[in-house]
């Protein structure tokens, strides 16, 4: 569940950055079209990857439930963090991505 959570959160951060307004709010500059496209692609693939991680860990029944829970909570966490600690929100995503191989090793 930890791996799914990390991937989900990072995926949502990427999706958030792929939107013009949030990109300039968070990073202080406009994103090019190509960059937004790749962020969007990366975000969706991270979400897909996290679904796979949840299902691989707990099977379809429980895995899907866990993934939905993680999906909702990571988005909620990000939206809460954005106004109060935008830098923290980004750092958490980076740390989460860095830690995800470790979580993967622990899981499999």
């Amino acid at each position, binding site marked *: 569940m930890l791996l799914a959570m990390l991937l989900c959160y990072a995926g949502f951060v990427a999706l958030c950055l792929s939107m013009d307004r949030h990109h300039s709010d968070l990073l202080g500059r406009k994103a090019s079209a190509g960059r937004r496209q790749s962020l969007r692609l990366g975000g969706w693939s991270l979400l897909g990857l996290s679904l796979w991680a949840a299902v691989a860990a707990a099977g379809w*029944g429980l895995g899907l*439930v866990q993934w*939905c829970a993680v999906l*909702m*909570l990571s988005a*909620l966490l990000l939206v809460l963090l954005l106004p*109060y600690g935008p830098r923290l929100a980004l750092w958490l995503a980076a740390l989460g991505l860095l830690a995800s191989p470790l979580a993967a090793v622990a899981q499999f």
Partner: protein
Amino acid sequence: MKEGFRQSMAWLHTWSGLVLGWLLFAIFLTGTLAYFKAEISHWMQPEVPARAVSTDSSLALAQGYLQQHASGAGRWFINLPDAREPALSVMWQGPVKPGERGAFMEKLLDPATGSEIQARETRGGEFFYRFHFQLQMPHPWGRWLATGAAMVMFVALISGIITHKKIFKDFFTFRPHKGQRSWLDGHNALGVLVLPFHLMITYSSLVIFMSMVMPASILTAYNGDTRAFFNEAFPGTNNAPAAGKPGVLMPMGPMVEQARQQWSGGRIGRIAVNNPGDENASVNVFRHSGDRVVHDFGSVISFNGVTGQLLRVSPEQSLPAAIAGSFYGLHMGVFAGPVLRWLYFICGLAGTAMIGTGLVIWLGKRQLKHAKSGVMPFELRLVEVLNIASMSGLVVAVAAFFWANRLLPVSVAERADWEVNSFFMVWALSLLHAAVRRGRRAWVEQLGLAALLFAAVPLLDLLTSPAGLVTSDWMLAGFDLTCLGSGVFLAWAAWKMQHPSHTRPSPQPRAERLRSLALKNEVN
């Protein structure tokens, strides 16, 4: 209907949300607490020790106890202890005479020694669980009202989705310190981000009560005989009746072991023994409902109690039963481990907060119009009072329930009822308080009181726990810490109410005025 589809949906959302919002807030909050009902019950009965013991030894102890104290009973029920419910509970029913039901007796046993535990009388977390769908009303009415509220909730969710124009554009948007704008942002974010949970919990609640809400298909197929439907959908265990000759019950350990193998390692939930002292004694072993997501009402293995011979293994669920069972299972979340249970709890709180923010927005938007004159029309004042009592008042009442549990003497007659009474009395008092105090003062005072009561729960626990039980019990510590955290949050909320961030000197600057105009259109 001249206005557009979206406008009429906005109207529906606004008014359905208002009319049942207060009730839904209470249903969501108590239902959310019910995810931790075992833990709450454990805190409210501190006499029950939490110990790691094997199910086999506690089963043997339970059988010994029942043979000694209830050998003539018609039926025994044994609930084995697990990680969440540390007591071994035994229940028995007096001899079943034709045409009448024997009285039930229940005792809690120490799973390590088999001796009776003298635990205080309390409804525990079961109170919140029952309240969230029965609303403390006589039998069918509470369920009807709660189900009606669920139906309205479903309507409010769907119309809310249609009303919300920019679901994806505003997906990550929350702008604090902007008064009414922030409330709307919060309401939208809580609604959209946790939407899968809201839809699941609301729809599944309707599925759970479907035979009550939509009986037409059952009435048609079974010629109006609903009992026939239930007998077919949930077949009884159909064990042989008592033979009237005495028999000796075998130790149940091996039967349980066999059941566990049959379920490839599944956990045992409950054991029911029919006619325990008879030649035709039968043992029904029920599977623990936390083993899988899809709930199965009838997962049972029956044994002959005297010979130990396996009589019957319940068949696999049919597809429709599995679909209904999955909604049931998802709603209850019995399968959830500690982490997932917390996520469930947070989702439930998010739902509660979504309803609460909706009520605040309804009032705030209309109050704006009367801000200049300073006089509030009666209907707005009524909504304000109900808002305060149904939200902060309920939170104070929950705290009062916990305090009553620890402060009422153990020997008081009808003690469990007095705990419940104190919950409702405090809630009623909060309504009175909200009616006599001015709006913002009432909010601050009630939230402040709730903060104080919750933050002091760990202290209360320390002072009133029976001596010698202040051990490393993580469940109790978790309860205390959660209360402390809730206290801190409520104190923050009270402080925010005291110092609102959007008090701006009038006249408003032009840009602000434009924005609030745009907002007004959007909120509607």
